[in-house]
C-alpha cells in the first residue's frame, strides 16, 4: 500500500478511537484526513481506512461515493462550489454561474450552503464567499489562481 497517514493524523486517529464506542465511527473522520493529505481519496487510502475502522474496503468505498464532498479523483483545477438552491437562485445565482464559466476553474453546482441570508454564495477550500457580484469574483479569484 502506498498510502500512509501522516504521524499527525495517526496521533489524531488514536485520540479519536478513545472517544467512540467503536472504531467503525472513524470512517468519515479518516476519509477526511485522507482527502486532506492527497486532495482526493485513493483506493490505497480506502484499504488503509478499512484497516483502521475494521470496515471492509468495499463498504468504505460505498461510503466515500455516497457523500458528495469526497473526491475520488484528483482535482485538476481550482474547485468552486456554487450554490444553486432556491434562496441563492432568487438572489441571482444564475448570473454568478454564468460569469464563473468564463474562468479557469472547475465549477460544482451544489445544494444549499447555509448562506441563504447572504446569497448568492460560493465556497472555495472550505470558505464561503457571500453576497457575490462579478467584481467580487474577480478579486477573489485573482488571489487564489
Amino acid at each position: 500500500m502506498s498510502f500512509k497517514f501522516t504521524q499527525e493524523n495517526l496521533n489524531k486517529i488514536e485520540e479519536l478511537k478513545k472517544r467512540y464506542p467503536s472504531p467503525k465511527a472513524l470512517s468519515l473522520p479518516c476519509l477526511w484526513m485522507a482527502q486532506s493529505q492527497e486532495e482526493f481519496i485513493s483506493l490505497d487510502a480506502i484499504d488503509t481506512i478499512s484497516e483502521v475502522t475494521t470496515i471492509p474496503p468495499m463498504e468504505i468505498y460505498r461510503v466515500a461515493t455516497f457523500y458528495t464532498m469526497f473526491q475520488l479523483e484528483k482535482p485538476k483545477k481550482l474547485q468552486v462550489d456554487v450554490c444553486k438552491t432556491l434562496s441563492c437562485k432568487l438572489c441571482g445565482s444564475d448570473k454568478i454561474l454564468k460569469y464563473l464559466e468564463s474562468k479557469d476553474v472547475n465549477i460544482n453546482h451544489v445544494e444549499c450552503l447555509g448562506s441563504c441570508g447572504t446569497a448568492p454564495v460560493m465556497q472555495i477550500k472550505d470558505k464561503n464567499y457571500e453576497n457575490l457580484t462579478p467584481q467580487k469574483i474577480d478579486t477573489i479569484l485573482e488571489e487564489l489562481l
Partner: protein
Amino acid sequence: MRESKIVSSKFHIQNAFNLHVAKEYGAYKSLEKMDIYAPQQIIQIIKDSMLRGKGGGGAPAGLKWELMPLDDKKPNFLVVNCDESEPGTFKDRQIISKDPHLLIEGIILSCYAIKAKAAYIYIRGEYKAYQNILQSAIDEAYEAGILKECDITIHRGAGAYICGEKSALLESMEGKRGHPRLKPKQKEPEWFFENPTLVNNVETIATVPFIVQNGADAYRSYGTEKSPGTLLFAMSGHIERPGVYEAEFGTNMLEYIEHYGGGVKNGKKLKAVIPGGVSCGVLTAAECEGLTLDYEALRGAGSSLGTGGMIIMDEDTDMVAALKNILEFYHEESCGQCTPCREGSGWSDTIVARILEGKGTEADLEKLFELADIMNGKTICVFAPSISQVIVSFIQKFRDEFEAVLV
C-alpha cells in the same frame, strides 16, 4: 413586537465566541444549578417548559429526554444535530459562530441530565469555517476546566442532506451511508452502536441553559400555549434585510417580515412564502394574512413551521421555475434507499423541467399529482412526503402559472 432574545442574547456582542467575553456576559452561569438539581429534576424542568425540538419537527424535547434510561447498564450518548442543510435555514451556524459557549453550556447540562459522558456534534461538511470557531471554543472550555464531566467531539459530515434526519445521522456516525432507519413501533431512544442516544438540534440544546437558569415558567412566558418560547426565525430570498432574528412563537408572520426584514425587496408585492425550509408547503400572500408563526397555525394553514427559515418570493417570481429548483434539490439529495422516493424525486424533477421548457401537457400535471400520491406515506423517512407536499401546494395554488406554459 416584544424583544425575545433567549438564544441570541449574545449575538450582537463582538468576540462573544471567546470564553472570557462570553463569561463577562453570563456564560456558564446555569451550570451552578447542577449542584441543586438531580438529573431527573432537570429532565422535569425541560418537560415542564414544553420546549419543542427546534430542528424542524417540533417534537417535545422533554419527552425524548425521558426515554433515556438512567440505570447505567449501558453508556448513554448525546448527539447534537448541526447538519443544518434545509434550504432557507442558516440559524445554527449563527449559534456556533457567534456564541459557541452557549451550545457547550447546553451540552454540559444535557449530558448531566441524561447521564451521558460523551457528546458528539455532527456538523455538515460545508460548515468547516464555523466548525473551527466551535472547536476553538471547545478547546477553551477544556483548558478552563469547564469541560470535565463529559467529552465533546465534533463529527464532520461530508455533504448529504439526509443526514439531518436523526437516524440517518447516526448511521453516518457509525461509519455508514446516511440511510434513515425504520422507526420502532414503541417509544424508545435512538441508538448509537446499540447504546441509548439522545439526538437534539443545536438550537434546542442552546435553549437549555436559559430554561435551567430561569425556570420552565420563564420560558413559557414567551410564545403561545402549545408552542411556548422562541425560535431563531430567518428570512431569505426577496427581502430587504435578510437574516436571522429570534422571535417568540405566535408572532404575526407579515409583521415579522416587515419589522425585521424591512419588507419585500425593492418595494415589490409579496407573492408567496415558503415558511420553514423547502420541505414546507408554499403559502400565497393571501394565506399569510393574519397568520402567526407557531406550529399549530402553520399546520392549520396546510403547511408546516419547519425550521422557521422563511423564503420570501416577490410578485415577479416564476413559480414553475421555483418548483423546478426545489425538485432538483430533492432529486440530488434523495438517499436512494426507498423506490418511491428515488424514482419519484427524479421523475417529478424531469416532468417539471419539461413543463418549464414549454413542452408540458395537462396530463403531466395529473402525473405529478399521481407521483405525489406515490411518494406520500410509503417510505422510511419523511423526505418523500415533503416532496409530495411541495408539489401539491405549488400546483394547486399556482395552477394558472403552470397551465400558462403548457403546450
